[in-house]
């Protein structure tokens, strides 16, 4: 750089340099938007650090752990029945479904099998928690896209299922009903007929949601072609559940690898897939799944066999030494428990594979280039429960 002697020339140069820098700043400096941990669209305490250019997302990074409760460590000092009460709180909208894979894994290690009646009721309650979970998703997704009424309808009609779960198990949200070797209790009187009525109401609710929300033109313009996940990317990120099926992959653990202890083969039902992989596909697949789940419940209700609901198991449960992994198709996707036992009252180590953690890991990939409102569509349609991410 040459020396500048004339002060006026110097000031010109400074002004020019400042101009350049300002322009550069305008060009390159985006805005970092910190969504959460207290943001209405994150269902709790997920934090998303989004780098924005105007309204366009350059990168979005989910930061989880604000609700970490250390279940994998706590269960090492809890007996198996105690663990059962604890893991209810992982996916709190479909609590009963959390218990089942753990109990099945423990049963597998102990070599006991629940009597047929218990298996039937287990499957029914499992599907009921799916209906309760996903029906709330449908309403909540509407709520996030600004359609308030759908949310309230979902809360209203989910109550029918929760009432049935409550009357069978005693717990509206956290049943803690599954036991190693069977169930805590038999069904109460009149429960089967009431459940039929409740499932009919939920099927009507699905029709209503299809009219009100999924068929709505604004809803479709907000979800179609938004957040497209191709099949190979979905597989690479380890998505499961409806998120995977919405990308066109026909894979459902209830059909392809149902662990013994659940009786999905006794009902006539269908796995729905959608080729698009966008937000609409995910919603649509979930809507169909709710219907299928209600149908499974209705079919199984009619064929519950008689008999005891509890196999013969020792009063104090000690699981023999060994390792077992059982995964089931939970409302949010594949959920599995890997239990390593040393023959003690408590498990030596439990690894929980929960669906939401993997499902949310695709967010940086899928959110790139989307607009901020699309980010909400994507987050909502990926459907995660914070407890299921952080455990």
């Amino acid at each position, binding site marked *: 750089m040459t020396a500048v002697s004339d002060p006026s020339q110097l000031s010109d140069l400074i002004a020019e340099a400042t101009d350049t820098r300002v322009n550069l700043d305008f060009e390159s400096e985006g805005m970092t938007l910190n969504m959460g941990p207290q943001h209405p669209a994150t269902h709790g305490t997920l934090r998303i650090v989004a780098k924005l250019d105007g309204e366009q997302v350059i990168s979005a990074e989910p930061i989880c752990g604000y609700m970490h409760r250390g279940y994998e460590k706590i269960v090492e000092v809890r007996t198996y029945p105690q663990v059962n009460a604890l893991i209810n709180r992982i996916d709190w909208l479909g609590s009963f479904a959390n218990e089942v894979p753990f109990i099945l894994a423990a049963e597998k290690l102990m070599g006991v099998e629940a009597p047929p009646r218990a298996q039937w009721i287990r499957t029914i309650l499992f599907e009921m928690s799916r209906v309760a979970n996903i029906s709330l998703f449908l309403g909540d997704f509407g709520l996030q896209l*600004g359609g*308030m009424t759908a949310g309230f309808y979902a809360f*209203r009609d989910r109550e029918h299922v929760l009432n049935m779960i409550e009357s069978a198990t005693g717990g509206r949200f956290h049943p803690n009903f599954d036991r190693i070797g069977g169930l805590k209790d038999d069904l109460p009187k009149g429960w089967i007929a009431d459940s039929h009525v409740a499932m009919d109401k939920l099927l009507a609710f699905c029709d209503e949601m299809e009219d009100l929300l999924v068929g709505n033109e604004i809803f479709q313009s907000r979800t179609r072609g938004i957040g497209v996940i191709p099949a190979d990317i979905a597989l690479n990120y380890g998505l499961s559940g409806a998120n995977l099926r919405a990308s066109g992959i026909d894979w459902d653990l209830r059909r392809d690898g149902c662990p013994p202890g659940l009786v999905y083969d006794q009902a006539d039902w269908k796995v729905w897939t959608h080729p698009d992989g966008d937000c609409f596909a995910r919603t649509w697949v979930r809507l169909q799944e709710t219907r299928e789940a209600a149908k499974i419940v209705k079919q199984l209700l009619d064929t519950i066999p008689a008999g005891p609901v509890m196999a013969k198991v020792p009063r104090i449960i000690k699981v023999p030494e060994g390792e077992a992994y059982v995964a089931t198709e939970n409302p949010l996707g594949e959920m599995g428990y890997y239990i390593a036992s040393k023959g003690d009252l408590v498990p030596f180590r439990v690894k929980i594979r929960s669906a939401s953690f993997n499902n949310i890991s695709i967010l940086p990939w899928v959110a790139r280039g989307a607009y*901020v409102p699309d980010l909400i569509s994507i987050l909502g349609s990926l459907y995660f429960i914070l407890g299921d991410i952080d455990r």
Partner: protein
Amino acid sequence: MTPLLASFDPPYWLSTVIKVLVVGAVVPTTALILGVVFLFKIMSWMQSRLGPQEAGPRGLLQLLADGVKFIQKEDIAPNGADLWVFKAAPLVVLSSTLLLYVALPASAHLVVEDLDVGVFYVLAISSLSVIGVLMAGWASANKYSLMGALRAAGQLIAYELPMVLAVIGVVIQAGTMSLNGIVFAQNGGAVFGWTGIGNPYILTQFIGFFIFIAAVQAELTQPPFDMPVAESEIVSGYQVEYTGFRFLIFFLAEFATAFVFAGIAAVMFLGGWAVPWLEASSDWYYVLGPAVLFAKVMLVSFIIFWVRFTYPRLREDQLQSFAWKFLIPLALVNIVATAVLKVVF
């Protein structure tokens, strides 16, 4: 001037005080009515829940209780806020609402100022509120606020145009820009020579009515056009940093504006304060006019709020393309058709 009012000719200062008091009393009252009737009662009815039940008979005083609560709250301003602008912003928004009420006629003489260019005045004043919104968003020193304010600015400017164009059809048909003149024209009009119900312009200007309601919905930032205050995206946008009394002012302004826009829609498309079987010059309208207008306002508000409770929200760019690619061409076609038919008939 009718004999009733002819004897009452107050000095300028007194009439001004009366007008200010009337507007000052009407604005919160209408906001309260809309809030209770639609936000609480109709909304909870549509969403199959009870709504407020405890405060007052059937929970009707809930909004008053809320208002008292808001007034009691501490007036908090964020650290980085531009304090004066931050505090003035809600007042700017409210003043635009207050000024709108000036032109709304409740009968031939029950109007604060019967302006010859009432339509023009209303449309001009209604775009003032965007300044307050921008002030609020900028001064809050919050990223969500800023995004909300910019969205609001883009949206309000985009929807001013279809609103103006929708109204032009009415103005062409009535041949006047005075709101009272439009009411008289509708009351004395005829549908293909049949004078049975006058000529409420919703019959001929139904396209204009649709565009006007859509634009009003956007001006009020209500679903499906509520991106500036989208609570699930940008956490209520420009309102996010406001608490207590200042938030209450935003709330008041929103509902009072909804009322006055519904009133303007009623005046321009539904015959305003007049009923078809009674001459518009009748003295009965001193008492009947406000009641008729109120009923029509409630009807229009019901449509506005029904849409609000039902639809999801559009995205910002979809909203813009809806305005520019659909509403404005439609409004232009409507104007051309109206003008041609006006000349032909």
